[in-house]
């Protein structure tokens, strides 16, 4: 398959890992953070972590939309489904995120809440159009990649004169989270960052310049295919070795300097930046989330249901998702990893999404901790 096979070629991968091994100097340790959950998943799925030199360590970042969703936001969605009698539409991964009182959207559905899994934002709009007598709420989550589709359906809802549709907006921004990771006190020292693939197709490579400069860290935007990742890691090692801190773009077949201006304009028309938004693991970050502009207020579920007030809910005591999302701990460092917390029965959000660090390690990597004979 074109654009897939050539980026998963074993022989080319061998060349790249040879180059990485040559580039990695024995005397130093390279701690690189792949910001995006898509990268975390690819590293595990293709077994890349095992073929990198031991002194090239990948730290899993917070770029997994499901993982950074705080419990309190899921609670709001559950309340909408259970108390407000709405049709609550959500992407599949959100359904299993653990909320307060051992609930989740999936359990709310089993208790009679009308919760529906959608594959796209547009599906939610269609449900609203097909059920004019019911209120339909789309539980919107995600980074800059999933924001334009949400903006688009809000515009379409306006154009169609819908009065039974609203959006519970949880869209978040990549750059404030990156800044938070790099400024947190006592955080892990990072030598460089693998920049997001799909997010960058929307925002472009230019916005990362500020981060690279301010924190003096190299950033290489990489695609999600395994060869993209290996190439991106190689480019990072070169920058580190040459004491450079630049924004480089490995994913040139999709990412431009300015990004997708049409998508940016669409988002800007419908959304504005919130003063602050809470992230699981990172806490409340200023200017890190989006809300629906006043001009589209009638589609904002938080305004339509004013008694729906967000409250902060602490994580499960033993759950290390916070430290894992900050890159301070690895999944296997968590006491409940793989014992109490598994993909079938997740306690923390990092075990829910396939892009979460814990789910990726559980699904693809946990054999590496057990001695086995070949």
């Amino acid at each position, binding site marked *: *398959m074109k654009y897939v096979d050539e980026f998963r070629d074993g022989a080319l991968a061998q060349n790249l890992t040879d180059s990485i091994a040559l580039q990695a100097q024995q005397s130093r340790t390279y701690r690189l953070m792949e910001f995006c959950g898509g990268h975390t998943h690819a590293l595990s799925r293709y*077994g890349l972590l095992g073929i990198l030199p031991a002194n090239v360590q990948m730290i899993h970042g917070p770029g997994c*939309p499901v993982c950074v969703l705080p419990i309190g936001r899921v609670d709001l969605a559950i309340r909408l489904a259970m108390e407000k009698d709405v049709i609550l539409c959500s992407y599949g991964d959100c359904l299993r995120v653990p909320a307060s009182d051992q609930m989740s959207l999936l359990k709310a559905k089993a208790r009679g809440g009308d919760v529906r899994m959608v594959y796209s934002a547009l599906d939610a709009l269609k449900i609203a159009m097909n059920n004019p007598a019911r209120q339909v709420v789309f539980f919107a989550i*995600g980074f800059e990649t999933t924001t334009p589709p949400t903006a688009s359906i809000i515009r379409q809802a306006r154009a169609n004169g819908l009065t039974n549709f609203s959006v519970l907006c949880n869209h978040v921004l990549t750059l404030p989270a990156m800044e938070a990771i790099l400024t947190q006190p006592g955080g892990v020292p990072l030598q460089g960052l693998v920049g997001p693939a799909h997010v960058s197709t929307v925002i472009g490579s230019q916005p990362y310049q500020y981060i690279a400069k301010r924190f003096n860290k190299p950033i290489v935007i990489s695609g999600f295919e395994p060869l993209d990742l290996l190439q991106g890691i190689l480019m990072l090692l070169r920058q580190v070795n040459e004491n450079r801190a630049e924004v480089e773009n490995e994913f040139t077949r999709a990412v431009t300097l300015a990004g997708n201006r049409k998508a940016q304009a669409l988002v800007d028309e419908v959304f504005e930046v919130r003063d602050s938004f809470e992230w699981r693991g990172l806490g409340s970050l200023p200017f890190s989330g989006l809300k629906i502009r006043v001009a589209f207020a009638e589609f904002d579920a938080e305004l339509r249901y004013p008694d729906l007030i967000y409250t902060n809910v602490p994580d499960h005591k033993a759950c290390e998702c916070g430290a894992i999302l900050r890159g301070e701990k690895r999944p296997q460092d968590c006491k409940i990893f793989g014992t109490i917390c598994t*993909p079938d029965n997740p306690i923390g959000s990092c075990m829910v999404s396939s892009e979460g660090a814990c789910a990726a390690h559980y699904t*693809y990597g946990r054999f590496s901790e*057990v001695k086995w004979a070949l």
Partner: protein
Amino acid sequence: MNKIKSVYVRPLDIKHGRVDMSHGSGGRASAQLTEVVFAAAFDNEYLQQGNDGAVLPLPPANSRLVMSTDAHVVSPLFFPGGDIGSLSVHGTVNDLAMMGAHPLWLSASFILEEGFALYDLQRIVSSMAQVAKAAGVAIVTGDTKVVERGKGDGVYISTTGVGYVQGSTSPSGDRARAGDAILLSGTIGDHGMAIMSQREGLQFESAIESDSAALHELVAVMLATGADIHVLRDPTRGGLATTLNEIARQSGVGMVLNENNIPVHRQVVAACEFLGLDPLYVANEGKLIAICAEADAAKLLDAMRTHPLALTAAVIGTVIADDACFVQMKTKLGGRRMVDWLNGDQLPRIC
């Protein structure tokens, strides 16, 4: 069954008619549906007995009976490469075949939804009859019930099969041993992706066809080699990955697969990419996994490749000693990862 005098009965309008509640009432309408649609298509001496059950001859002396059952609820009912009817025959025939058995007889239960088109029912029934005949099995008894509109999804079919196994043949999920070779009869993911492409309206240059097929003749060819086959299993729901994990747990062993050796059709790879799925977890309906003594692997593989259903058969991995029962895979990229149980349903990724 006594023929109802056709002059006194309004003929069943197959072309425009629909199933109604009376077809499941046990009265005249039920009898007519059974006679015109089912008995006519499945016709055989046991069904002709027209009784509540079929009286069947004993299998050959010194053989053992094997019995298996399978329910089918596929949606859509018709898909490239098959339909719920052919699937319901192949599914149960294959369950028998995976025991090393020669399949003989099937029973079939139909749960029909009120309003279901008789024309579609007849298509499904003829398809069952056709593949049963091709597989050399007779549908010897059956039942039909009708549920109200909205309480079913067109038609559900349950089939139960009886066959026999001879000699010392006894493949079993708990017999995989460290050092054994793992063989796969062909490409994975075809059935599941044929269904998913149909559901999602994905179009490809050439349609992905379900691999739905009866595997007992392939199994007969394999058994005839005299190879020491420890395990036979068809990787249906949950795909190759889940079936291998089941075997690993049952046998208390681990496995190492080689991703390069696992055949997958290009269109299946493409469709999986679009939908965010992994072919290792996608259902098959005409493939089998065989685990045999390493020394017999080459002989068994050669024999499999002579059969049209296993032309691309391959040795895909090795059984290893591992108390944790992990299935691992050497990836095409030269890395190594686990191939875990299917977790929940495969959900498309969101970003």
